[in-house]
């Protein structure tokens, strides 16, 4: 934990945190770092809210019969969980918190290209969240997070339009963020920072931003068309009026499948950074890993029909989408193999971020390979809409993205706050999260394969053992999440002060004090080499 190039000791008032302490200075700040912290606070609160809905579901599922909630309430619970976790936690998680905080630091810039747009994105996000929460308080939605027609149109009996409006609004905050990142990465790189000297985290967020900008408008369109049908009687999705119900699924998944990559690509960026740092090695095959992010972003747009294999889509389209879905596994596999190759002969230390990164590799691999199972046309007929699907995407979203997010938060916590977290507690909870996660979701693969459908609050008695295991795992997972919440808050006051580069990492963000001054660098850094000069640099 020695410092290679100690930055000059920082007088406290220079840091972005101590420029001003008023609430107004936070709410009107255009500093990308402060906006990142605003997002961090907001999405943490929303994560707890979405998590509470999951707890309610897992409690209900401890016994085969209904004992805590009615079917209607259960439907609203899983819809709340999905809507909040997808749009108000996972999509903004790494991009809006870590991306906002780190991209300008990593490319040697003073801020993002459009600081006011950045602040606006947070307000728009909060407005969308407020709409959605209002809809939930008034009675909720029972369509599932997918809003499939006709549940959301002809036969809707819940607050669909209010929730959809919230998501529609939030979409604009995604577009603002994506646009800001693209322009920033194109135009504000420090002198000498060529494209192939960018950290892989920046590459992954560049790819993510392309998806945010290209896909999100289609979500707005698909929800907007529901509004047109419901309010003005246009025949868009209703076959009685000449519409096509499958059109909704096409439009929705044209956004929502790439959205899965919005949720996982930034996690891959975090893992690339941590694996390199804690193996003391350059990432194996840097250019290929960078390009695989772009390949995932592009190919990710060509696979949406694999959500529709059993919904009446033509067999020909099913074949095409199945084949394309197999293709998108290739760049993901490239990344996984290259991280493993990076570990080879590395000087590995098991610090907390590294534990999360290693967990990510294992869990993402399981999630990815079961994705191939689901992409196979015939097998999908058996497991479609069962717990197998639930387990699969939670291995990607929670086992992958949430692990990477927590790993990233730990890795850059000293930079963000200027304080070290307690390493022992952090390692303990990383292991707790890993164990709890697997105990929660591995039984769900078995349940799905045995035929338990998703989205039911009752089930046959023979499924109880596996469901109890899953609920037990969820409680461990919950505790595993509460630990970091507690000790990270504790560290803000009692944690030891962090040096500018506590991990001995390469990367421009470590060459400025922790926490950084408002404009990040006293002098614009000049870059002369690639991002991971670990072997030669130390």
């Amino acid at each position: 934990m020695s410092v290679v190039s100690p930055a000059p000791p920082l007088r406290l008032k220079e840091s972005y945190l101590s420029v001003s302490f008023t609430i107004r200075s936070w709410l009107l700040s255009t500093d990308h770092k402060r906006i990142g912290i605003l997002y961090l606070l907001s999405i943490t609160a929303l994560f707890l809210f979405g998590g509470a809905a999951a707890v309610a579901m897992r409690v209900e599922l401890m016994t085969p019969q209904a004992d805590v909630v009615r079917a209607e309430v259960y439907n609203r619970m899983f819809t709340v969980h999905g809507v909040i976790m997808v749009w108000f936690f996972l999509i903004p998680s790494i991009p809006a918190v870590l991306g906002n905080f780190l991209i300008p630091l990593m490319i040697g810039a003073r801020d993002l290209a459009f600081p006011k747009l950045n602040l606006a994105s947070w307000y728009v996000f909060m407005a969308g969240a407020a709409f959605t929460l209002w809809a939930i308080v008034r009675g909720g939605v029972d369509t599932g997070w997918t809003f499939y027609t006709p549940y959301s149109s002809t036969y809707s009996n819940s607050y669909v339009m209010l929730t959809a409006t919230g998501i529609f609004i939030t979409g604009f905050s995604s577009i603002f963020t994506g646009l800001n990142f693209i322009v920033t990465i194109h135009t504000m790189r420090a002198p000498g920072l060529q494209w192939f000297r960018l950290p892989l985290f920046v590459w992954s967020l560049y790819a993510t931003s392309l998806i945010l900008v290209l896909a999100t408008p289609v979500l707005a369109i698909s929800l907007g068309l529901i509004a047109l049908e419901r309010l003005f009687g246009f025949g868009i999705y209703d076959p009685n009026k000449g519409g096509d119900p499958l059109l909704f699924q096409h439009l929705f998944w044209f956004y929502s499948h790439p959205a899965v990559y919005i949720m996982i690509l930034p996690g891959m960026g975090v893992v690339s950074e941590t694996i390199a740092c804690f193996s003391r090695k350059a990432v194996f095959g840097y250019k290929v890993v960078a390009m695989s992010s772009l390949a995932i972003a592009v190919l990710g747009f060509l696979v949406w029909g694999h959500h529709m294999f059993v919904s009446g889509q033509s067999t020909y389209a099913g074949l095409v989408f199945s084949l394309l879905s197999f293709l998108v596994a290739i760049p993901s596999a490239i990344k996984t193999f290259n991280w493993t190759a990076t570990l080879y002969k590395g000087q590995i230390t098991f610090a907390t971020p590294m534990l999360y990164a290693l967990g990510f590799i294992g869990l993402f691999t399981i999630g990815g390979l079961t994705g191939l199972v689901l992409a196979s046309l015939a097998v999908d007929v058996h497991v479609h809409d069962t717990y197998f699907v639930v387990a699969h995407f939670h291995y990607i979203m929670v086992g992958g993205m949430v692990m990477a997010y927590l790993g990233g938060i730990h890795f850059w916590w000293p930079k963000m706050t200027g304080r070290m977290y307690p390493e022992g507690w952090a390692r303990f909870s990383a292991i707790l999260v890993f164990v709890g996660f697997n105990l929660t979701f591995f039984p769900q693969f078995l349940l799905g394969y045995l035929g338990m459908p998703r989205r039911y609050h009752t089930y046959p008695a023979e499924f109880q053992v596996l469901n109890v295991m899953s609920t037990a795992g969820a409680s461990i997972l919950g505790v595993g999440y509460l630990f970091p919440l507690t000790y990270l808050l504790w560290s803000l006051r009692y944690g030891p002060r962090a040096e500018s580069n506590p991990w001995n990492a390469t990367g421009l963000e470590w060459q400025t004090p922790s926490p950084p001054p408002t404009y990040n660098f006293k002098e614009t850094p000049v870059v002369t080499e690639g991002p991971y000069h670990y072997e030669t640099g130390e």
Partner: protein
Amino acid sequence: MDSHADHAVRRYFGIFAALLVLLVITVGAAYVHLGAANIVVALVIAVVKASLVAWVFMHLRSSTPIVILFALGGVFWLVILILLTAADFLAR
């Protein structure tokens, strides 16, 4: 500078007038029975209108090549959306 600004304003009003003319043609064409060609005519006019808006109102005509490339990227993604949806719809 003034004459330059006047010129720009004249151009914007010219495009606005063109868009209104195209709107009238769209409405008029809807009353002429052309069979399947009706939808083609309507879509062609819509594409022309969208292109005028992008090219002039959204300043693509004076933008750098990379901005134009990104705009074309948006068009390409629209083609992906229509093409793969058609792969289902036309093969049902």
